[in-house]
């Protein structure tokens, strides 16, 4: 029952975040911040701890790639592990 | 019940005093030789039991009533244990009769006699009580059977 309920409401929802344009705006905003942070790195004294992090943009790149990697791997794991809701019948 | 055996009845009547006296002999001789309250008690009880066997338990019950019997059993124990307590009170160890008399030997004589009396009372009355319990049942059953006929 509650499933239908969710589906129905999506179309006529009026939330700010639900609007396509707004979600694009958020992505633009985030991208802007990221670019800013990337550029900022040229002006800040870098203090590398591990060697690999002295490359410019290491943290950003690692965050981006690592996250995407995690999500894609999750997809695969999900295929493997997902079961119907009432799988454990106890 | 052996109502019809006259010989038995007469013999038993004759034997009873002898058995009782023998019981007393065993009782008091226990101090010096084989014997003592236990054996004497059994012998004395045997006398009454014999009487009961021949003349019927109800007759025996008239001689030694059940109520008295039930009181005698613990009384004997009390005599026995009380003597011990008495010697405690007189400052000796439990069941050490020495202080009971004027000199230790006399005390010991007296003590053992009293204790043996206690044993006698308890043993004889217990034997009798057991006899009453079992013999009485058989007789009661017989009586009720006769009534049914």
């Amino acid at each position, binding site marked *: 029952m509650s499933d239908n309920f969710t589906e129905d409401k999506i179309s006529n929802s009026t939330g700010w975040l639900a609007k396509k344009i707004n979600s694009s705006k958020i992505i633009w905003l985030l991208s802007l911040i990221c670019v800013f942070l990337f550029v900022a790195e040229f002006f800040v004294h870098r203090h590398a701890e591990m060697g690999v992090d002295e490359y410019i943009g290491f943290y950003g790149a690692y965050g981006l790639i690592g996250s995407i990697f995690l999500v894609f791997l999750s997809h695969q794991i999900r295929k493997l592990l997902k079961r119907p809701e009432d799988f454990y019948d106890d | 019940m052996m109502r019809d055996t006259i010989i038995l009845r007469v013999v038993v009547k004759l034997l009873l005093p002898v058995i009782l006296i023998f019981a007393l002999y065993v009782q008091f001789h226990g101090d010096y030789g084989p014997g003592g309250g236990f054996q004497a008690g059994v012998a004395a009880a045997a006398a009454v039991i014999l009487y009961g066997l021949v003349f019927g338990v109800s007759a025996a019950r008239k001689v030694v009533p059940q109520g008295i019997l*039930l009181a005698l059993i*613990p009384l004997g*124990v*009390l005599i026995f*244990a009380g003597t011990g*307590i008495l010697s*405690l009170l007189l400052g*000796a*160890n*439990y069941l050490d009769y020495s202080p009971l008399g004027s000199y230790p030997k006399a005390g010991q004589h007296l003590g053992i006699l009293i204790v043996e009396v206690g044993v006698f009372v308890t043993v004889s009355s217990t034997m009798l009580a057991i006899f009453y319990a079992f013999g009485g049942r058989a007789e009661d059953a017989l009586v009720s059977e006769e009534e049914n006929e």
Partner: protein
Amino acid sequence: MHLPALQVVIPLIAAALCALFRHYFLAWFITILASWLSFAIAILLLLQVMSRGVISYELGGWVAPIGIEYRIDLLNAFVLLIVSGVGAVIVPYAQKSISQSIEKSQQSWFYSMYLMALTGLLGVSITGDAFNIFVFLEISSLASYVMIAMGPDRRGLTAAYQYLIMGTVGATFIVIGIGLLWAMTGTLNLYDLAQKIPLIENSRPVLAALAFLTVGISLKLALFPLHLWLPNAYAYSPGVASAFLAGTATKVAIYLLLRFFFTVFGGVEFFQSTPLPEILFVLSLLAMFAASIVAVFQSNIKRMLAYSSVAQIGFITLGISYATEIGLTGAIAHMFNHAIMKAGLFLLIGAVMFRLGSVKIEDMAGIGRKMPFTMAGFVILGLSLLGAPGTVGFISKWYLALAALQEGQWWAVALIVAASLVTMLYIGRVVEVAYFREPTVKVDQLREVPSSMLLPSFLLVGAAVYFGLDTSLSV
């Protein structure tokens, strides 16, 4: 000074007085006086032994090997404490329970027998004379037969009869053993025997005596598979008698086993040179499992507890079979603990019987709500029985496990734990019925038992918890 004599004589005289006056209330009153007095004496004796060492008391002033000697060391002072303690705690409870289940005219006899049994058990524990042990053993046994026969259930008679036969066989074996020893050494004093036996300990009669004593005592302590008399005897006797016997009789038999093997027959080396440790070990394990499992399937809760007693005795003898300091500590501690727990459990079940009139497990549905204190006590003691930390049961099982570990027997530890789990099953069954089922109409009308019954039970419950935390006394 004369405490050792009084320890035995007071209940004896009181028993005679009860029988003499034959008034139910007076008898109860005498019983309560006598039992608490002897408890006090036992405490004093233990304190004396602790401070001054072994006490020896010569009856009738005769010197030891000839006369009868009462001799109290730490071990039997402790047993005296257990027996008189359990004996004393039960009496206040008895009045209500007995007046319900036994006719008025018979009640004084019950109290008399109760005191006789107490006399006998105390006598066995205190005396240093082998023949005296037999005499007192018979006194206590005969009194117990009577008590069991006075049970509310007609099956009590059969049970008492069986117990009579088996008890007599056991006692006869013991007296044969003692007789053989006497024939070989010419003495009946335990400590005198202990001096003389090592010289001839491999002669046939001594070994035969040992065999007779072992079997006789095993019978008395209900060592598996010689326990067959016990379940019925405990199940069909009056609640008070069950509690008293379960708490004391087998414990005294265990004391005898310890006394004969470790005092008379020259201690640990001799014990280990015999095949007894192995036999005891195997039988103990069998008892722990077989009897526990039988207990699980019982529908009568008193029979269940009786079988549980057999299993718990298995735990005790297991500790003895190791014959190490830790093992014996565990065994003696468990002896003490089991006395408290089982007496308490039987009292509480007696309380259930008092109100419900039945001890069938299925009749007890939902009783936890109607008799909250009784069942709470049951749960606590049950937890103790299965060895939950914070209760006495934990302490002794702990030591038993340690003893097993000391021998490097990992699997034995696992078995101890597993047997405790079986215990959990049968206690759990009762708890499940008592708390998680809807009360039946009959149960719904019940109320809690009077405080004269609750307080003694809770004294034992309290003891089970207290000694579980403060282990200075029992360890």
